[in-house]
């Protein structure tokens, strides 16, 4: 992990922010916006997967609920953009706390199944019983035109201003995430990943640490969902569907879950590939499914991890921690 060396870590985060700042001038702006939103989603997800060693197949729940609640705030309560994002993050934390209370004590595989089941529950809730508010299959539409009034006026209807608004929120979030994961709490999470029993024996409360890890992960994922609403101006019901959970799992592992910046690289490569492959063939899922299986069989550390193993790290220990 980069964390042992704070100087190197700050360089990594600074580099990522610079790369994100110039991204819309390299590729199309809407794609760039989508990428940095998924960067936040994947890195939020990775708090749980890469840093704590817990796998959730229901992260669409946090992302999607974040999207919907930001949408509700904007459409029904006439809230400001900032307020709607706050709503989104809050609901993500609350739902994560509820699911965590029910499932976090479970062994990993069990937690994976339960998270998938609860994820699908929210999808079906949005699809049918709550149709009146969510718009059912059509998604939540007619969100009013967005603008930001505070601290200065910004019209959020052209692509480039949306991009830099999203960039600002994502950058703040990544710095916050860095602070969380660089703290003693963050180290405790990675220690749990390496050897849960031993950390328990050392007198740490493993269950609570996992619980907070899930809550943080839920907050950042939901915030990413809220940003997606700001970006798209509507909420598709597929943002709650299990394929969304699957996408973030694949992005994170593609980039390398054992590195802080890996999921960001994964999200960028994934979406760029999707954009390019879909221009040639429309069978993206075969492509990505097979790619993912090859990744699991041969390149488990993902892009960043594999590169570090090849070129970066001097010792095998460093390579493994990457």
């Amino acid at each position: 992990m980069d964390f042992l060396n704070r100087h190197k870590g700050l360089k990594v985060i600074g580099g990522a922010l610079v790369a994100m700042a110039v991204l819309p001038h390299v590729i199309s702006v809407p794609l760039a916006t989508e990428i940095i939103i998924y960067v936040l989603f994947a890195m939020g997800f990775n708090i749980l997967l890469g840093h704590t060693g817990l796998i959730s197949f229901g992260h669409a729940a946090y992302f999607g609920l974040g999207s919907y609640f930001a949408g509700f705030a904007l459409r029904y309560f006439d809230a400001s953009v900032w307020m709607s994002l706050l709503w989104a993050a809050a609901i993500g934390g609350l739902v994560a706390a509820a699911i965590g209370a029910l499932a976090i004590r479970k062994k990993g595989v069990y937690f994976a199944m339960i998270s998938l089941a609860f994820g699908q529950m929210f999808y079906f809730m949005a699809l049918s019983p709550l149709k009146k508010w969510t718009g059912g299959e059509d998604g939540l539409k007619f969100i009013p035109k967005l603008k930001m009034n505070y601290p200065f006026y910004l019209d959020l209807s052209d692509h480039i201003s949306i991009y830099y608004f999203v960039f600002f929120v994502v950058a703040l979030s990544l710095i916050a995430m860095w602070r969380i994961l660089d703290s003693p709490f963050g180290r405790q999470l990675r220690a749990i990943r390496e050897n849960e029993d031993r950390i328990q024996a050392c007198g740490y409360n493993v269950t609570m640490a996992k619980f907070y890890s899930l809550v943080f992960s839920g907050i950042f994922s939901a915030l990413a969902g809220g940003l997606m609403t700001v970006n798209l101006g509507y909420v598709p019901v597929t943002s709650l569907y299990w394929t969304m959970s699957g996408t973030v799992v694949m992005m994170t592992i593609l980039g390398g879950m054992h590195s802080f910046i890996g999921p960001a690289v994964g999200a960028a490569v994934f979406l760029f590939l999707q954009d390019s492959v879909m221009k040639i063939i429309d069978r993206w899922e075969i492509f990505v499914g097979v790619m993912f299986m090859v990744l699991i069989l041969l390149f488990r550390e993902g892009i960043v991890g594999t590169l570090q193993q090849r070129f970066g790290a001097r010792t095998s220990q460093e390579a493994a921690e990457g």
Partner: protein
Amino acid sequence: MFGIPVEVLIMQVIFGLALGAIYVLLASGLSIIFGLLDVINFAHGTFYMLGAYAAFMATSLSGSFWVGVAASVVIVMLIGAMTEYFLLKPLYGEWPFYPLLLTFGFAVAVPDLMKALFGLIGKVVEYPEGLVGAFIWGGVLVPKYRLFIIIFTAVVMIALFLFLKRSDLGMIIRAATRDSLMVNVLGVNTSRIWTTGFALGVGLAALGGALHAPMVSAIPDMGVEMTVESFVVVVIGGLGSVGGAILGGLIIGQVVSFVSLFAGEYSQVAIFFAMAVILMVRPRGLFGEAGRL
């Protein structure tokens, strides 16, 4: 009850039992695989879907539903054995989530492959002759095919129990579920047992798919919901226990059937509430062993 004639309620019970039977087949397969390999098969519904398609192809080639069902189970067991051998085997002994993630990749790629091969339109499997329609029994309309599924699944489950409890291979499978290292030390090739167990588990999923096919017709995405629903069943029943899978499947079948009668729009959500309640009241599931999960 609630102004609904008792005949309708009994019919709803039968519908629920038939649906529950499909869940029982899937969930018991999932439980066997988990017990042996410690792998949650995220592609379980995919094998169910493959079972339905294999049944469609074999039925249309041979003209007989029964040949179709038998062929479907055999074909999918072979696919399952190959999947385990080539894709999962290299991952044992690594981080326990890698096999799970691999089955997830399988569940993403294969339905899309089926879309490319067969298109999006459902493939209809004809009801077998003699099981079309329904008969009236004491004022209750009993659909023949659903009754058949209930009886057939009961027979399969009894056979599975006898196989696991009485046969030598079944004994080895049960022993390997407890402690595969010890079984290996005693001179059994556990690697082969795992392949067999995986094939057996997905074979049960395929049987579920083949039997369900005339009722729902085969579509590439039919497996997704089934994977999730069979997860719910094993969480309720207790993971790793075939008895729990049976009880859980029957409960969920009834829940779906009655909720669709009384509150149709909640039919897909109700099973998750049932799961949440079980998790609060009895976290290990109805038949689950304490401390294992």
